[in-house]
């Protein structure tokens, strides 16, 4: 069944068409890739799916429920989390606090929470336990009390992912999760994504430039260029597609 789907979505910024009749479908439980040259409109599409971005035409569906009018914070309630390309962490706050905010939708009744009533306190303790467990899984345990601004880039990328996981989402949108990471960090992240996908059943939509990573981890890939669908298929199909090669490499290699 389709987990996330967008249909004929068009986004215009003044005269510029950022997304041109995009169609994309993410089936449940799969890892779907979204690739395309720089400026192709991938992050704009993410903002559309996350509901930060309005669109002129088209519709978006979450589990076949129309979400055109939803606000970003409502998408999390539905089960969709997202990471940011340029990392959008709370740099002065600690790793633990950053992860905990991801679990915001689980804090229960706001008044009970504010006054630290007994039930809310138990809930908070449980959330902290979960955050610690996620940090453990991503090997961030040592940095839980460190303000995020003190962490290296690789660590901060993991905190961003941890925050998404803290929401106990059904689907996660990853925006360039391994950008700027070395081979080892990339491998680790791929392992984590696979683990979360296979053992916890989380669907993934991944935007990436690292081709080997995308080809290795994705079940299906969408290619967009100049804001429009260019091709889609399994990694093998996409790799061999002439249009895709032309778009990425310019001229066909001799």
């Amino acid at each position, binding site marked *: 069944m389709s987990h996330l789907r967008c249909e004929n979505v068009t986004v215009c910024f003044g005269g510029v068409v950022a997304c041109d009749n995009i169609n994309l479908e993410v089936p449940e439980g799969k890892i779907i890739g979204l690739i395309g040259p720089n400026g192709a409109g991938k992050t704009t599409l993410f903002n559309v799916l996350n509901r930060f971005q309005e669109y002129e035409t088209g519709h978006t569906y979450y589990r076949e429920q129309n979400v055109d009018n939803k606000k970003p914070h409502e998408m999390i309630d539905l089960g969709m989390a997202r990471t940011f390309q340029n990392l959008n962490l709370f740099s002065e706050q600690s790793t633990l606090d950053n992860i905990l905010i991801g679990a*915001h939708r689980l804090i229960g009744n706001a008044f009970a929470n504010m006054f630290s009533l007994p039930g809310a306190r138990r809930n*908070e303790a449980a959330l902290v336990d979960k955050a610690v467990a*996620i940090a453990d899984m991503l090997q961030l345990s040592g940095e839980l009390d460190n303000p995020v601004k003190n962490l290296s880039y690789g660590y901060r990328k993991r905190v961003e992912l941890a925050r998404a996981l803290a929401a106990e989402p059904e689907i996660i949108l990853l925006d360039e999760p391994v950008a700027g990471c070395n081979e080892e960090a990339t491998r680790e992240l791929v392992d984590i994504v696979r683990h979360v996908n296979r053992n916890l059943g989380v669907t993934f939509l991944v935007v990436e430039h690292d081709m080997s990573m995308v080809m290795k981890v994705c079940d299906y890939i969408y290619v967009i260029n100049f804001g429009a669908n260019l091709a889609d298929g399994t990694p093998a199909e996409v790799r061999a597609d002439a249009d895709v090669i032309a778009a990425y490499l310019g001229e066909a290699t001799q």
Partner: protein
Amino acid sequence: MGDVATSAVAARPTRYNRAVTALKAQFERQNWALAVLFFVVLLIFPALPFVEGWMAYQASLIVIYIMAAQGVSILTGFTGLVTVGHGGFLAIGAYTAALLMKYTGLSVIPGMIAGGVMAAFIGCLLGLIFLRLAGAFMAIGTLGFAFFIGSIFNNVPIFEGRTGISLPPNTVFGVEIDDFGFYYVCVLALALITLFVYSLIRSGVGRAFKALRDSEKAAESSGVNRLLYRTLAFSISAFITGVAGALNGLIVNYVSAEVYGDIWYSVDLLVAAVVGGSALLFGPFFGGFFVAMVPFYFEELRDFAFILKGVVLIAVLVLAPAGVAEVIARPFRAWRRRLLDKARGSAQTVEAEGARS
């Protein structure tokens, strides 16, 4: 999705779980001890031999300012919103308590609460208009609100404009109280409110406020309903300042547009929050003390008081923008961080990571 916590990793008590949790609990106990000590000192203060009625009065004023500044700091320091109009909530609190006392004979404690509730109500309404806006617009909107409320109190007859409303002596549970009694009421209110703010800051709601302050996009992406939480912050902030306002009116048994009709309270409270440090729990204690004591020392030289406040404000912004409290807290925080680091051996982890990436 399955619960991440059920993964085998969570079951294993790591070094974090034991040493660090114990250390954090210790810090928490230290915080509590300091707070209790502080309030005990406040409570003992009137019993000291040299303390006279007017000193209790001045101390009450300081407590009131601290409370009002706490209201402001919840909004500016913790949620990242600007308000140059909180004097309006102070005034609303004062007038609500005054009118209730005049027409229904309400005593101090219900008057206080009523003042807070009314301020919160108006704050909520105001929030609906202004909280959608970007920071600069909101600042101007709240400033306009302060002027507006000032002119309402100046012109609408029931508030008796500049003549003001004189009130009967304050009573608690039917017993008339003097300066000392009023002081205790103020300290009690401050203690309860501080307790609440402490709980709020550490709660999930407090996290949501801080998240909105630090990165709205990330906060919304994580599920924080921006408008709802901003309004909540605004209302809570207005409530606290409203309670302070009620006490401010009742302490002199008098409210008038002469006192509440302009923006001086609004900017004074902003000064208190900024100078003290709006992102710390005890920041308003410093800021409130400063703003309350300046007119006390410079009663004759009011102009010099203005200049002093301006100079101190600018000095703080240039030298210690996070407030006086932050500067004082720095060595303690660094010391606690060092203890935490030792407890989990993070120093080595960062080094190792630096070599890899």
